[in-house]
């Protein structure tokens, strides 16, 4: 699934490991989401949504593009 995770992370100047620590997953998981190899669980998606203080649809784009 396309997502804006990499951009949001870069805006905050966080490394993948730093973001991973903040949501309690491995760096590999963040990398796999950013490279669209893995779609996060609902729990992780909500954690990211809460961390970035943005709605899910502003982070993840299931239709393949930003609305």
């Amino acid at each position, binding site marked *: 699934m396309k997502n804006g995770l990499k951009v949001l992370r870069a805006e905050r100047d966080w490394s*993948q*490991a*730093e973001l*991973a*620590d903040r949501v*309690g*997953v*491995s*760096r*590999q*998981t963040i*990398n*796999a989401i950013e490279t669209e*190899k*893995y779609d*996060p*669980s609902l*729990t*992780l998606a909500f954690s990211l949504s809460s961390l970035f203080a943005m709605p899910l649809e502003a982070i993840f784009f299931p239709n393949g593009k930003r609305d």
Partner: protein
Amino acid sequence: MSKQSSRILSDDAVILALGLFWLLLYFAVRFFLEANPDLARGMRLGLAFLPTPLFALFLWRFIQGIRSADELERRIQLEGLAIAFPLGVLLLTTLGLVQRAVELNFQDWSYNHVWPFFIFFYIFGQAFARKRYL
């Protein structure tokens, strides 16, 4: 390295060590039984089950490791096992059919020879799943 990554690696080291200890004990018992065919039956059976508690400990830690892993690692483990298990079933059923078709030499195709294939299937399944996600 994130905290989650380092915790997984630490768990991996313990699980790997337990697996290697079990393997060493297995081969030690196997060679001892082969070298001492005159031991009493009860003693031989007792020795045959000697590695079992260590394997149970390994299995317990392995399951704990998977439970404590993050969601991507759990997905990889699941896909790896989903590949390895059917391959194991395929091996056993095919060997069963081959055994009915022709006479297999016990020295070449006994329980002693089949189980390492399951470890190979697990490693293959893991590699396949990791290639997809990492």
